């Protein structure tokens, strides 16, 4: 076998090069190809929970954020069948929580909203759960609005793996799953959370919010006003993990605007 041969797989008919150890989504992002996702962030270990990045690899459905690329693999992503399933997943996320985009300050910079637009979601389809989820406004500088939590666990991973604090965790099972903070009182103010933490800046939706910022960014300047999420592979500002064989073709990685 030729040691210098570039390993590749085929994604929707396009040849995608990859390096050993790269997952499908990592290689696709490095090649500038968008695969919809929510719980994946290249800065953190894949979680594989939201299933929005599901693709069909050699005829079998799998999470592209956890599935390692293999030479010669045939992968389908942007197909009607898979996008229909992604849309249904997004609709379920919308009805499980309380996502009132019209008055949400994350609107325009929210990955859930942007992904729903990307997938052509026109309605929630399912009945809303309207769960009762009180806010945690105890911290002087940060607010937790649990209404919008999609259980992506990015804050859990950031606090545990980067901040070394374990401020956040997911508790409960199944439909009872919910985000908790590490304090007997259950209040963010009584944890070791700080605005300097990585966990304060990774929420893809509108749960962890810096207080008193609100709608400071005008319409037209928000993360996804100018271009859809498919043209902004990871708005947290992180670069894809691993070698980028086709980095020159990567679109820019804008940061989520924070004030």
């Amino acid at each position, binding site marked *: 076998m030729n040691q210098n041969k570039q390993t590749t797989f085929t994604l929707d008919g396009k040849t995608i090069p990859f390096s050993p150890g790269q997952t499908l989504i990592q290689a696709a992002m490095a090649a500038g190809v968008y695969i919809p996702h929510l719980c994946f962030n290249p800065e953190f270990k894949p979680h594989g929970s939201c299933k929005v990045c599901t693709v069909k690899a050699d005829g079998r459905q799998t999470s592209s954020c956890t599935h390692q690329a293999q030479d010669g693999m045939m992968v389908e992503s942007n197909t009607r069948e898979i996008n229909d399933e992604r849309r249904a997943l997004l609709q379920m996320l919308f009805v499980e929580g309380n996502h009132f985009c*019209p*008055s*949400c300050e994350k609107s325009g910079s929210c990955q859930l909203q942007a992904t729903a637009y990307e997938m052509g979601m026109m309605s929630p389809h399912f009945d809303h759960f309207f769960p009762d989820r009180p806010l945690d406004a105890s911290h002087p500088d940060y607010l937790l609005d649990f209404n919008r939590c999609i259980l992506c666990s990015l804050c859990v991973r950031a606090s545990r793996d980067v901040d070394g604090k374990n401020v956040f965790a997911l508790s409960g099972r199944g439909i009872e799953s919910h985000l908790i903070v590490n304090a007997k009182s259950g209040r963010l103010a009584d944890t070791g959370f700080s605005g300097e933490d990585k966990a304060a800046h990774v929420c893809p939706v509108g749960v962890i919010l810096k207080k008193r*910022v*609100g*709608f*400071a960014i005008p319409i037209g300047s928000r993360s996804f006003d100018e271009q859809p999420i498919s043209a902004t592979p990871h708005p947290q500002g992180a670069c894809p993990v691993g070698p980028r064989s086709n980095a020159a073709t990567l679109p820019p990685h804008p940061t989520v605007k924070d004030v």
Partner: protein
Amino acid sequence: MSSLLETAAHPENLRRVAIDPISRVEGHGKVTILLDDKNRVHQVRLHIVEFRGFEKFIQGRPYWEVPVMVQRLCGICPVSHHLAASKALDAIVGAKYLTPTAEKNRRLMHYGQILQSHALHFFHLCSPDLLFGFDSDVAKRNIVGVAEKYPETARRGILLRKFGQEVIRHTAGKRVHGTGAVPGGVNKSLSIAERDELLRDIYQMVAWSRDAVQMVKELHHRNPALYNSFGAFRANFMSMVGFDGGLDLYHGQLRGRDENGNMLFDGVDYQNYTDLIGEEVKNWSYMKFPYLKPLGKEKGWYRVGPMSRIQNCDFISTPLAEIERRAFIAYSGVMPMHAPLGYHWTRMIEMLHAAEMIKDLLHNDDITGSDLIVTGERGFEGVGVIEAPRGTLIHHYRVDENDLVTMCNLIVSTTHNNQAMNEAVRRVAQQYLHGHEITEGLLNHIEVAVRAFDPCLSCATHALGKMPLEVEVLNEAGERLSFLSRTGDGVLG
């Protein structure tokens, strides 16, 4: 607070005629009329049966979310709620004074709102009544009929409204439900390109607004018997005026006059509005009946909106609108104008003022400045008042130490006019219905009276005349004697 025809002495043997629904923007309303066997009117009520709930579900939300959330109360003048809430929350962030750029951009947004709302109301919704007659052919009594017979008038109405919407889009980010105002200021100022784009058309808008005033003025002069008496009733006036006594739709202090035009109060700081205004609840309407506390419930009800503002202020700062204000005052004579159709004239004077203000603001360098937000000592309670297109709008909030809203009280323009609209409907019923058979034209007379106030309860005014109506006459046993309905496309059934 009660008045003639509010409650019949012996309702048990009277026929009940109901206009239900009066299609509305913000819920449901109806008019009920009790008649005896000779069609004499004994009781007339305008019922507002809407329930919105914003005051409740804003509780527990972070205060900075409020201006964007509460504007969803309305799709017609959301800017008014957006700005009233922002003004109230300026006190929470300790912004005693805004930067010149912030205040001017908020004002620009507000005048854009006034322009588009007044143009929509007059041209699209009321001009068919005024140009064709209240009981004219229903098939043509709509904006399409106006466009056929008076194409230039219809075109100007549409373009005036469009221009106002563009002003809102450039200041708030969207034509409807934008985000421009934030506690302490604004999140953007006008760009040079946006300013120049608006400057291209503003002179035409001023000219067309002036023509609109002439048009409604001529209608009054041509038929004073109708315009001076239709649905007329005497009432107090209230509005905000500028600190110099001039017309100011964005900021100032409260002033009230009695039915003879004499000053009741002046220079009232709206932060103390609860000392001035009480709200009475009646068991037949979900809308409260505000009244001036010093005058009591019986005599304290009042009118708000364009006719109050134009007659309450000492002057208008822009020259063309001031000329028209003086002409209106001269027409009215010594006593104030009380006839509801006077609202149309004064509304057009305000539209002209708004266009002139937009022109002036576009020529002011502050409008493109970069100093957008100020903050100061944190507050925990704030009241914001603005003169919305339909009248005085009051927003009042309390916020806790964790930044969450604990109390919200809103008194919207249409609520102030509740008793006044009831009175207008009663007068029209007396003038036109008393002793007559019910006809579609009669229904429209009642609508015309309600419409004059431009209430935010009316698809009558905001669905291009497609106001479905049903009137039924029942006997004392509740059996239907006659029934008349009109569908959304004007078909009588």
